[in-house]
């Protein structure tokens, strides 16, 4: 374990850790000395890959299978981490889903299904994690949003709405819990390898890379680098911000 890392000694929970973006975040966190817990649901081999990536740095790791759409799951995973490590310093709300269907075909069930994970689960996790963070008067929450949450780009309406809601939560919550030493920020991610890229038609990805100042999609570890800094004690003044991480595509 890296004793002098950016996140040395931090106890971190990342949701959706078995996905491409989630693994990149977990890996950078581990490299920077954190103990990393992550949730996963569905793909055991991807979970094992993330666990291996974290343990490669000699860090303690918790892999928790959880369906975060289930209302009690948020409290359960936070409690599990707190009980094992004595507390939680950082929460990264990364788990999300998307599906590419046009607005007129989105029905209540589709909206509820998507909001349940992309917004309500994050809401419940924040609430569960804040109890301990407020007590310890220190904490960091990083919500993984999307450029679709704040910009007019081609993308499913219910997905964009869920990310818009997450960004609203980020700003208001930051204001409310800032006085307790807890900083809440969001990363509006562009298109990254893995992650929700599979829901984006190829010609949209091409338009993205054509517009990107770096002419490429992002690598998960590049998202991890920004999340690591936002989650660290070096971040002492950034709060309630939504940071665009898109290689200069929409910035």
């Amino acid at each position, binding site marked *: 374990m890296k004793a002098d890392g950016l996140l040395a000694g931090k106890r971190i929970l990342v949701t959706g850790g078995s996905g491409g973006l989630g693994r990149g975040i977990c890996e950078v966190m581990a490299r920077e000395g954190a103990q990393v817990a992550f949730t996963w649901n569905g793909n055991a081999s991807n979970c094992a890959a993330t666990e291996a990536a974290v343990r490669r740095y000699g860090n303690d790791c918790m892999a928790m299978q959880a369906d975060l759409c289930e209302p009690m799951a948020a409290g359960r995973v936070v409690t599990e981490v707190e009980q094992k490590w004595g507390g939680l310093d950082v929460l990264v709300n990364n788990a999300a889903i998307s*599906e*590419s269907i046009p607005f007129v075909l989105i029905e209540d069930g589709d909206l509820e299904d998507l909001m349940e994970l992309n917004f309500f689960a994050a809401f419940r996790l924040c609430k569960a994690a804040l109890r301990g963070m407020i007590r310890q008067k220190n904490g960091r929450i990083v919500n993984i949003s999307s450029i679709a949450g704040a910009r007019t780009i081609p993308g499913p309406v219910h997905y964009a709405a869920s990310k818009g809601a997450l960004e609203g939560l980020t700003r208001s919550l930051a204001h409310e819990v800032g006085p307790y030493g807890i900083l809440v920020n969001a990363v509006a991610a562009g298109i990254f390898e893995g992650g929700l890229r599979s829901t984006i038609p190829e010609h949209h990805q091409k338009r993205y890379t054509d517009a990107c100042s770096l002419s490429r999609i992002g690598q998960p570890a590049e998202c991890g680098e920004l999340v690591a800094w936002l989650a660290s004690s070096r971040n002492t003044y950034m709060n309630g911000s939504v940071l665009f991480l898109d290689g200069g595509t929409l910035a």
Partner: protein
Amino acid sequence: MNISTQPQVKKDRDASFLSYTRSICPVCKRSIDAHIVLRADKIFMQKRCPAHGFFEVETSSDAEYYINSLTYTKPGTMPLQFATKVEHGCPADCGLCEEHQQHTCSPIIEINDVCDLTCPVCIVRNQQRYSMTFDEFKRAVDTIIAAEGELPILLLSGGEPTLHKEFFEFCDYVMHGPHAGKIKRLLISTHGRKIANNREFAERFKAGGMYASLQFDSLKAGVYPKIRGVELIDMKMKCIEVIKELDIPTVLVPTVSKGDNSDELGALMEFGLAMDQVSSIVIQPMAHTGDGGDFYHKSPAGHRLTMPEVHQLIEEQTGWFKRSYFHPVPCSHPSCYTATYLFRMNDSRYVPLPEFVNIRQYLDAMANRTLLRTDSALEKMLLDSITQLWSTSKVGDDSQVILDSLKHFLKETFNSRNPLSYDEVERKAEARCKAIFIHAFMDAWDLDVTRLKKCCTSYVLPDGRIMPGCSYNNLYRHKDRRFFPMAEPVTPQPVPFKSMLKAVKTEGEGNQA
């Protein structure tokens, strides 16, 4: 003196002249003038060879369809580079010359002329001696990539390409060589024997990611002996079973000979539609070229299925498919390709895209390519269609079934809970939305340089030329020294205008076909 003189009466011609073009003499293959004329609601090509007389061939059984089809045109796309200069005029400068009006979206590389069948409908001239070397193959692939940059498909043909000793090495070069990723699909034109009978070969074929472009002419016994020279029905059905078992992506290619298997068009189409592995069906009315086709029928000019006849037969034989679903593909000449796309709904019925999408957008999406691709034009077409359907649909009607089916398709295709690679998305799209093409090759009887000029189906030669398919088959193949080492090269011989004038005779004389 009582002299009775009949007043001279001017007579009308029996056909309306529509347009002028160039063709070739079916006997001596020299380049000659040709007229496209309308008579009795049909379209004919008339032409006269100074040496062999007058010829007439029906080119469309439906004049209204033909004339309307000519409006389906888009500016062609030029290749990145041409291979030959304009010196003698079409069709003597093939390769592609600078006057060619379209790039090549369906290139063919013939890797051998060896085949274990001698099909009576064969359009090539197999000499059973040529196997392309790996260097030649690389040059051919490099040539077409230099001309096109990227390709939706590349077809390896022959002969029977699966008999080539380096078949898989050639495939590997396309799929994983220096141009990897630039060729979306590698199709193998095959009779299917090796897939049917050689398990190891079939598994390697599947693992290689190639598509089988399977000659598949009939569903019943007795037809293959006529058009393929031997009964193949059991082998074909075995091949289909292997294709299903190994999930080999497949294009079904029936060659249709009037009176032999033209009664099976509907059944063949339904057969292909029922298979998830079949991405498209390419119906090829037989052309009288090649060592088989040249001698297939005693009256080649009269033995042909024109495009509207094929449409009509499919309508009659299916009972649900309307001839109006077919539209000319704007990338080629309208007499060469027609197509439609059929979307499978949740209840397993098929609905043609032209039934629920804006037809202009549909044609734009088809422009200058043989395959629909998931690009902005296609997305806009589908989104507009969905919005229009949704705004006018009522619960329970067919529009609602289409919308539910489209939603189901999108949810299973672009969904992060079940992430798919781009190739997997394409396969799912192909299983759900199938293309039906009719591709009419030309023979010496109906060869029309107007059609040649917009040809997008070309043979790629190792010498750097890219030859429009029907030009090569009719004028160049028998002079290709790869197959005929002693052949004299093609020497362009435009017909001198004066000799043409001397040779003009009254219509009806000569070799009326």
